[in-house]
């Protein structure tokens, strides 16, 4: 079975501006894949290449084994897309807008559309220009979801949605996965991505820096460790150790961050009268922020 998405050596340049550089990525069918990165990292560029809205400078991308440049229309039959920024037809009502895109596709189940509209609590009788940002986003979501596509490409789909609607949205995409469909999404609601996605990729400055299952990403990352001693211990004991950073001594406690094995830290702590140890696994947000942090640190050294 072909992967839902396969990207090989994909580079997209905009003249002097960086787009994405040598990206390799595969998204399997039936998974929810999170695509994370700071603003301007290249998430939208990658998604637009998948939809053939822009063409690769080099490398290639495939959706369900079809080349994005050569087989765009066939791909579009199986894809639902929500851009990060969009504006639809001001004078059409929400219902007209949804119907227009249904007409362009054909074969849309009106009952399912009505169900989507109801679940997203959208009033379809209002003109698009009268909608709030969140309601415009709901119209975009219905347009992307209404034909039950095999692959959903969603760029910041929760943008503008209130927390309740965010919950509904994540329910909808979990249902899509249950049906065996694939979801490729970018989001800044990392907590939800953490709970919903099977795998995640982090892109920074146009390059993929991490791709793995959520648990593995967390595991490969650091641990927050809190050590408690019988008496105060200086931070310098742990500073400089391999994989140790952010050491803060506070009374009899020492907080530090450890990347990789914690054995050496525990051995040293034991030698200094360790009483208790608490280690917390990082969540995805910690991982993501750490990537930012490394970036910032690298910038600082430059």
């Amino acid at each position, binding site marked *: 079975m072909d992967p839902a998405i396969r990207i090989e050596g994909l580079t997209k340049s905009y003249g002097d501006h960086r787009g994405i550089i040598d990206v390799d990525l595969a998204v399997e069918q039936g998974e929810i894949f999170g695509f994370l990165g700071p603003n301007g990292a290249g998430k939208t560029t990658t998604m637009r290449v998948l939809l*053939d*809205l822009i063409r690769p400078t080099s490398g290639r991308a495939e959706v369900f084994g079809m080349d994005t440049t050569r087989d765009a*229309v066939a791909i579009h039959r199986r894809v639902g897309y929500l851009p990060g920024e969009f504006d639809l037809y001001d004078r059409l009502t929400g219902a007209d807008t949804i119907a227009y895109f249904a007409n362009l596709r054909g074969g849309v189940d009106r009952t399912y559309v009505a169900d989507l509209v109801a679940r997203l609590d959208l009033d379809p009788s209002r003109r698009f220009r009268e909608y709030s940002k969140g309601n415009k986003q709901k119209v975009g979501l219905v347009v992307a979801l209404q034909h039950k596509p095999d692959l959903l490409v969603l760029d910041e789909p929760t943008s503008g949605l209130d927390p309740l609607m965010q919950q509904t949205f994540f329910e909808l995409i979990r249902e899509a996965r249950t049906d065996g469909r694939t979801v490729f999404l970018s989001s800044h609601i990392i907590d939800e991505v953490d709970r919903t996605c099977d795998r995640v990729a982090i892109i920074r400055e146009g390059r993929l820096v991490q791709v793995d299952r959520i648990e593995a990403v967390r595991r490969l990352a650091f641990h927050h460790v809190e050590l408690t001693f019988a008496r105060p211990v200086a931070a310098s004991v742990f500073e400089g150790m391999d994989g140790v950073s952010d050491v803060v001594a506070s009374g009899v406690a020492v907080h530090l961050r450890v990347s990789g094995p914690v054995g050496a830290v525990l051995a040293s702590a034991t030698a200094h009268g360790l009483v208790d140890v608490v280690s917390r696994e990082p969540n995805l947000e910690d991982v993501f922020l750490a990537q930012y942090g490394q970036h910032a640190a690298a910038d600082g050294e430059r």
Partner: protein
Amino acid sequence: MGLSSIFAKTVRDSRRAALLVGLIIGGFMFGTGAPYGRSPEFATVELREVFLAGISALPLALRGLLGEPINIVTLGGFLSWRVGNTIPVLFGLWPVIALSGTLAGEAARGSLDLLASTPQSRRSIALQKLAGHITALVFAMLLAAVLIWLVGAAFGSLPGDEIPLSAALGQVTLYGLLMLVSGSVAFAAAPTLGRTRALGLGLIALFAPYLIASYASMSSIIDALTPLSWYTWTAGHRPMAGVTDWVSLVPLALLTAGFLAIGVVTFARRDLGRTAVIGWLRLPSLPAGIHGPFTRQLADRTAIAIAWGVGTGLYGVLIVVSAQAFSDSLASIPGIADIIERIYPGIDIHQASGVLQLAFYGFASFIVGLAGASFLAAWAGDEDGGRLAVVLAVPLTRASWMLRSGLGVYAAIGILTLVLGAIIGAAVVTQGGDALTPLIGIAILGLAAAGFAGIGLAAGGLIRSTLAAPVAALVVISTFLLDTLGPALDLPDPVLQLSLFKHLGQPMAGIVDPVGIIAAVALAVGGLVIGAWGLQRRDLER
């Protein structure tokens, strides 16, 4: 740079347009002044007086839309008449577009909310924006004045040909005010009516007074409207021709200031971005057009196409109802029939169709061409506004979207043409004339507009869709200038033949040239096909 205040940013945003307007006005003066100063036909005062006598013998409508010739035996007078009288109309588009959108457009985008949330009063925001635009306009006029002065110094060949800087400044003061007054109408209307309607009112304010002043001599109906035209008020102020009437500028300045004040006060008082619903200004509800790109495009363009058709049609009606009076006035001029037969062979000036060809066709072709460009501007919104990314995520090839949406633009031009034809046809019938002949002319006029739009679609597909409207507008304006100024500039015949209208015959009068029709169809079809090919090959914007 230029971001220290709203005023500074407005000036900064307007600087390119100001520079361009100043340079183009100077370029027109240069292009007309150089041949006038050097041509043997204008080498002596006597030769110039012969030319003046010939011009004066023609009724106003036959002189084009250039107004009364004042002291055209001097370079300044000639420039003021031949080029200057059309400048405020052509370049008045700039303040109309800018001032209709400076607040309303920003409100529609949502950026005005951010601006208004800064510690600035609404009145201050409006005044700073206004001051910024006026500063840019003043800069453009100063630049034009310096260039006019240089043209006088470089090409004046007889005593009196020099154009003092003070005269150039006096002339551009008139231009600036005539340009600004239409923009001020749009500015006054925008907070209440929104950008599009304000733009429409501004365009009416731009063209109507000009047309009234130009055609007043043709009929008592139009003549009765002349007190409403600021072109009539200020007809005696031509400093470049050595004639000044500064007092006539005072009411124009007061009117402009009044409209601007209304705009500022209304903006300060009304809810931001909330426009009034005015029943009589609303066009009837039309089908939503949700069956595909063709119907979608057509549905969104239909209302404005009808509006363009009605506006241009009313102008045509004025000409039709004045046809008899026009014909009578011509008959009273000895030898004029021979002159007309020589310049416009085969035209019967006793028929409404003949008068429409002489007095309507040229300007209407310009207006309908610009209407086509405006449809392209809206068409480009699909890509520029990000809608196209959503549309092309469906199983639809880019070429198919381009062809279908482009046909939608052509269909909108078709609707404009139908409305225009219906209005003028009805007017001709009520005057007891033959409606069929001018209707053929109007159909060809629409075809020409589709040809110009085709050039825009080709550029839009090949490069980016936001280029479509400017390219089409540029071709329309260039063609209009080529037709109106080309002969006076003594341009070589191959250059004059570049105008599509040189090859369409005199269609309102029933004289049709198939070469031009084939060319227009080729431009429309070829442009669309090239655009479709181009769109398949490039990245989408945004």
